[in-house]
């Protein structure tokens, strides 16, 4: 992608006032530039949940991890320079928002990363199977976390509503792993949401 194209994309992202679209566009541009150097990025955490659910959850930052080996720091700096980013080496300000370049992506699910053919190139999103089980886990952590619970409920609603495909067998497997051991909690929350939406729950703890 030549500099004029990058500058046009930056102008578009800078002018974007919808936080979800701004995240998606910046993820698309960064992923395209990383891919040109053999790198691969994944949108993780709340940014991924926002793009998967439009749940009005995201803040003004975008979290990105890398799948294989990280690009060398000089290459990363070269790309961030092209993006006129300030800061670094992990936390950057670019196009009117923050971009955090984190470490290698951590996923326990065997399903594929979800993929969107963005306006500047394809970008990857963390697997919703991981996100679901993790948010339910956080929602019960340290006496309860209502924000994580609401976030998990919205994710489940989008899945049960048919707008996001997941592998429920994989959700069940993850929730049974020693890292989580929260299948009964996942099943209970999925049942709650299923009841609200008046559909059958696909996840049972027995």
């Amino acid at each position, binding site marked *: 992608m030549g500099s004029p194209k990058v500058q046009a994309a930056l102008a578009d992202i800078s002018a974007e006032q919808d936080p979800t679209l701004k995240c998606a566009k910046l993820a698309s541009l960064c992923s395209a530039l990383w891919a040109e150097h053999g790198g691969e990025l994944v949108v993780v955490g709340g940014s991924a949940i926002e793009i998967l659910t439009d749940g009005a959850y995201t803040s*003004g930052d975008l979290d990105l991890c890398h799948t294989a080996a990280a690009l060398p720091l000089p290459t990363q700096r070269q790309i961030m320079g092209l993006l006129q980013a300030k800061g670094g080496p992990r936390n950057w300000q670019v196009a009117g928002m923050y971009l955090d370049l984190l470490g290698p992506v951590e996923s326990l699910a065997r399903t594929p990363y979800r993929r969107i053919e963005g306006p500047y190139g394809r970008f990857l999103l963390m697997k919703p199977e991981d996100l679901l089980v993790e948010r339910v886990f956080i929602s019960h952590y340290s006496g309860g976390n209502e924000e994580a619970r609401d976030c998990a409920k919205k994710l489940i609603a989008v899945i049960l509503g048919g707008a996001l495909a997941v592998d429920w067998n994989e959700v069940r497997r993850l929730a049974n792993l020693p890292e989580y051991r929260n299948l009964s909690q996942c099943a209970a929350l999925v049942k709650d949401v299923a009841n609200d939406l008046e559909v059958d729950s696909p996840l049972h703890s027995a």
Partner: protein
Amino acid sequence: MWLMTSKLTVPCIPLDGSISYEDWLKGRRYRRELGNRVAPGVIRRQRSSSDRRLKKLFQGERGLPFTPTEKL
């Protein structure tokens, strides 16, 4: 994969393959509405370790305001 709802046809973010940006955009309102049936409309965290930098950039807020559902 596409879903037939009572009012419109909504594309699904698939397990395999990819979804086009246009199809992802088409599903925004439906996804937002589904979430709003089970949790409050805006669930942005009230605080985090990034508060200082976020509030500096977004005039005291933690991010840009969300587009209302009816405008998606």
